[in-house]
C-alpha cells in the first residue's frame, strides 16, 4: 500500500472516529442525571418560564431530533450557544484555549527538551549515580500530584519569599490594560506569572519522556551499529546524540503527539491552583453545570486534536525511520 492510500484510509478512519466520539459525547451528556436548566434558572422563576427556557434550548425535542441537529452543527463546526453565558461556543473556546495553549506549550517544550536530554544521558550513563538520581526524580515527578507541588511552590515562593505572583496571568487590577492577547503574552508581567505554573507542569510532564527515552536508549545502545560507530573512532558525544539518541527517538514521537493533544485540554488542577483562566477549568465547569454545548464543543476540540496529532505522528514515523512502511 502506498502513502496516498494510507492517508486516505486513515482519513476515513479519522472521520468515523470523530463521528463515534461526537455520538458518545452526545449520549453521555444526555444520560447524565440532573436538569441542564437547574443552573440557568433562578429559584424565583415560575414553572412556565422554566418550560419556556427548556423549549428555547431545544431540550424538549425528541432525542433523535436533537441528535440530528447536533450532527448537522458538528459538520458545520457550529457548536451552538452556551446555555449559561449565551455566547457562541466557538467564542468561549477562543477565549480560554489560547491561555491554555501558552501555558501548556511552554511546559511541554521545557518538559520534552529536559526530559529527552536527561533520558539520553541516564541511558548512556547506565548504573551511575546520575542515572539513579534522574530515574528517582522522574518517578517522583510523575507520582506527586501536580496540585500539591503547585501549592508548595505557591507557599514557598509566593507567600513566604514573595518572588512569584500568587495567581492569574497578570497582576491584580491590571485587567483591561492590554490591548490584545499577544500584547499581554509578550509583557514582562505575564512572563512573571507564567514561570511558576509552567515549571510545575514541566516538572510533572518531564518524567514521561525521560523514562521512555532512557529505556529506548538502553535498547539502542545494545545494537551492533553502536559498536561500529565506536570502531570508526567517533567521539562519545557524537555517538550518544547523533546516532544513539536519534535512533531512540521514535517512541517519543507518539508519546509527544498524544501528550500535546492532551495539552489542549489544559490542566484543571494547575489552572485552579494558579487561577489560570484556561480551557480545562471551563470544560469541567461546563460539565458540572450541564452546559451541553460548551461541554460537547470543548471535548470535541480536545478529541479531534488528539486524533489529528496521532495521525500526524503516524505520518512522521515514515519520515523519521525509512524502515517503517505504510502497509
Amino acid at each position: 500500500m502506498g502513502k496516498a492510500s494510507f492517508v486516505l484510509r486513515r482519513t476515513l478512519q479519522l472521520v468515523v472516529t470523530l463521528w463515534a466520539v461526537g455520538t458518545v459525547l452526545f449520549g453521555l451528556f444526555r444520560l447524565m442525571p440532573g436538569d441542564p436548566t437547574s443552573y440557568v434558572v433562578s429559584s424565583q422563576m415560575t414553572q412556565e418560564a422554566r418550560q419556556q427556557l427548556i423549549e428555547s434550548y431545544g431540550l424538549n425535542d425528541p432525542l433523535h431530533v436533537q441528535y440530528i441537529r447536533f450532527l448537522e452543527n458538528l459538520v458545520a463546526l457550529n457548536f451552538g450557544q452556551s446555555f449559561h453565558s449565551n455566547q457562541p461556543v466557538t467564542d468561549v473556546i477562543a477565549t480560554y484555549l489560547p491561555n491554555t495553549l501558552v501555558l501548556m506549550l511552554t511546559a511541554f517544550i521545557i518538559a520534552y527538551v529536559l526530559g529527552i536530554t536527561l533520558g539520553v544521558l541516564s541511558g548512556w550513563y547506565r548504573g551511575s549515580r546520575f542515572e539513579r538520581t534522574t530515574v528517582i526524580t522522574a518517578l517522583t515527578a510523575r507520582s506527586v500530584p501536580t496540585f500539591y507541588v503547585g501549592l508548595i511552590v505557591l507557599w514557598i515562593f509566593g507567600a513566604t519569599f514573595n518572588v512569584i505572583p500568587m495567581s492569574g496571568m497578570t497582576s491584580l487590577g491590571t485587567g483591561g490594560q492590554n490591548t490584545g492577547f499577544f500584547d499581554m503574552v509578550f509583557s514582562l508581567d505575564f512572563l512573571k506569572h507564567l514561570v511558576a505554573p509552567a515549571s510545575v507542569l514541566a516538572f510533572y510532564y518531564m518524567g514521561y519522556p525521560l523514562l521512555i527515552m532512557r529505556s529506548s536508549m538502553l535498547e539502542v545502545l545494545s545494537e551492533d551499529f553502536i559498536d561500529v560507530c565506536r570502531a570508526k573512532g567517533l567521539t562519545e558525544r557524537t555517538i550518544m546524540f547523533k546516532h544513539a539518541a536519534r535512533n531512540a527517538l521514535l517512541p517519543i514521537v507518539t508519546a509527544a503527539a498524544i501528550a500535546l493533544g492532551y495539552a489542549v485540554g489544559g490542566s484543571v488542577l494547575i489552572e485552579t491552583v494558579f487561577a489560570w483562566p484556561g480551557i480545562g477549568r471551563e470544560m469541567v465547569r461546563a460539565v458540572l453545570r450541564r452546559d451541553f454545548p460548551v461541554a460537547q464543543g470543548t471535548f470535541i476540540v480536545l478529541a479531534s486534536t488528539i486524533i489529528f496529532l496521532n495521525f500526524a505522528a503516524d505520518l512522521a514515523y515514515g519520515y523519521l525511520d525509512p524502515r517503517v512502511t505504510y502497509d
Partner: protein
Amino acid sequence: MASSDSEMDRRAFLKATTAGSAVGMTALAGCTGGDGEGGESGDGESGGESEGDGESVESNLPTYTYTNNAQSYNPPRHDAINLIASQFDEELGLDVEVDVLEWGTLYSRVTEEYDYSFSTWHTFFVSEPVTELNNLLNSGNTDPGQGNYSGYENAELDDLISSYLGEPDADTRVDQAHQIQQMVMDDVPMMPITQMPMAAIFNNNQVSNWQADLANGFNSYWTMINLEMEGDETVLKGYWPETLSTMNVLGHNDENKHVYQFNMMYDYLVQLNNNAEPDPEVSLATDWTRVDETTMEYTIRTGHSWHDGEDLTAEDVAFSYNYINENEVPLYSTQSQYLESAEVVDEETVRVNMAEPLGPFNLAVANLLPIIPEHKWADRENPSQQNIEEPVGSGPMMFDYWEQGSEFGMVRFDDHFAPVDFERRFWRVIPEASTVWENLISGDLNYEPFGRIDRQLNENQENENIGTQFEVAATFWHFTPNERQTGLDDAEMRKALVETIPRTAIVDQILFGFPDPGFNVVSPAFGPLHTEDVTEYEESVEAARSRLQEAGYSYADDGTLIAPSE
C-alpha cells in the same frame, strides 16, 4: 448513646460527620422495604414486636433518603447532613440513607422529581419573606418545579398569605406575617438548621464603614455607596471563586456573583437602606404613591443620564417594565406575574398597573426590576438570550472591562446621585481559598465579597490587617422533609425530626460558632416582620422519642421505630 444534648462528644461527632456511607450501608443491610409496607424480616420471621434477644423487627416506615451535596461542593454542609442523618438513624430509630449528589442532580431530584426524603441547602430569602414562603409552601405550588417541593398543604396558610400579599397597609401586613410564621413553625414543613450570618471580611487598612442591607448583605447598593476608602487607596479589590457567566442583566441566573455586579451598574425604581426601608434619597424614584390597590405612581429623578451620556427619562422606566413583562423574561417571571403595564403620565411620572393587588410592591417588584435603556434594548428580541458585551446602565458604577475567567472591572460613574467613594472596583477570579487570604492580608485584595464562613476565616480573623463584621442575615440552611413520603406527612414526626437535629453542635463544631441555631424561617433580619413568638423546638433526642411515643409510635428492642397501625 451520644447526643441528646447540643454539646456532642468530639469522637462521636467526628464519627458522625463522616458516616454518610456507613449510614447508607446500614440501610442496605437492614433490608427494609422502601414502600412503607410492613413485611418479613431478614430472617424470614414475621414482623411485629419482638421479644428480647436482640431480635430485630422490620420497621413499617420506609427507608428514608437524605440528599447531600458532594464534600468538595460545600464541606461544612456535607458534614452537617451526615451528622443529622446519623442522628436520625442511630438515635431516632429511622432507616436513613445518605445520597451524595452533584448539585444540579440534587436540585432537580428534590424540586422536580421529588425523589428524596430530606433535603438541606442554603436558602436565600430576599427582601420580602412572605412572597418566598408563598413560593415554597403554597398548596397550589406542589407540581414539579413550582416551588413547593415539601408537598406541604395548608388551606388556612394559603388564605393568610393571599391576604397578606393583597394588603396595602404595612401594619396589618406585619400582624399577618407574624401569624404566618406561627402557623409555619407549628407545622414545621421546613426548619432552619442554622441562621447564617452576613459577613464583611476586609483589609482594615484600606476600606471601612461597612453597612449591610437585608437582601444583598455587605454587597448591597447601600453598602457600596457608604463605603469609605482609607489612606491613599482608591480601588475596591474583590475576588470570586469562579468566573461571571454573562453581562446580560436580563439573562443571568440570579447567582450572587451576577446580582452584586448588576446592582451597581443599573438603577432600580426603589433602593433600600440598611433598615430594609425604601429610601427615596438614593433611589431613581424620588417619591411614590399608591393610587389604589393595583396602581402605583413613581416620580422619576430628573437630570440623570445613562453611562453612554443619553438622558434617562420616564419613557425608559415605563419601557423597562413593559419590555420585561411583554418579553416574559424568565429571570423576572415572579415579578411579571404582578405586572399589567407601565405608562408615562408626564415627564417625571410613571404609573405602574398591577395584574393583581400586591401590598409590598416596592419590596417585591420595584426594588428588583432593573431600569434598562430603551435606546439599547428596544430592538433586541429574546432578551434573556442576548450576548451583551458592554452593558450600559445608569448605576453608580460603569462597565470597564471583562476578561473572561480572569477579571471584571467597573469604574465610578461620577454623575450618579449616590456616588461611591472608590474610583474603581474589580473582581479577580481566584478559586483557591488560601491564595485569597494571602492577598487579603497583604492588601492586594481588600474585601472578600463571598463572606465565606470557613476555617480560613476562623484562623485569620485576628490578623491585624483583617477586619470583620457580622450581621444577622435573611438566609438559612433549611431542613425540609418530603411530605409525600410515608410518615413525613405526620406533623409529630416532623417535630421529632427537628428536635433530633443537633443545631447547636453544627453551629459550634462545623461552622466555628459564626451562625446562630435556627428557630424561625423568617429571620430577625426582617425587623418588624419577624416575630420571636413562634413554637420553639428543643434539641433533645429524648424529647423527640417521647413525642413520638405519645403519638402512638413504639420502639422495637433493637431501637427500630414502629409507626402506629392505622
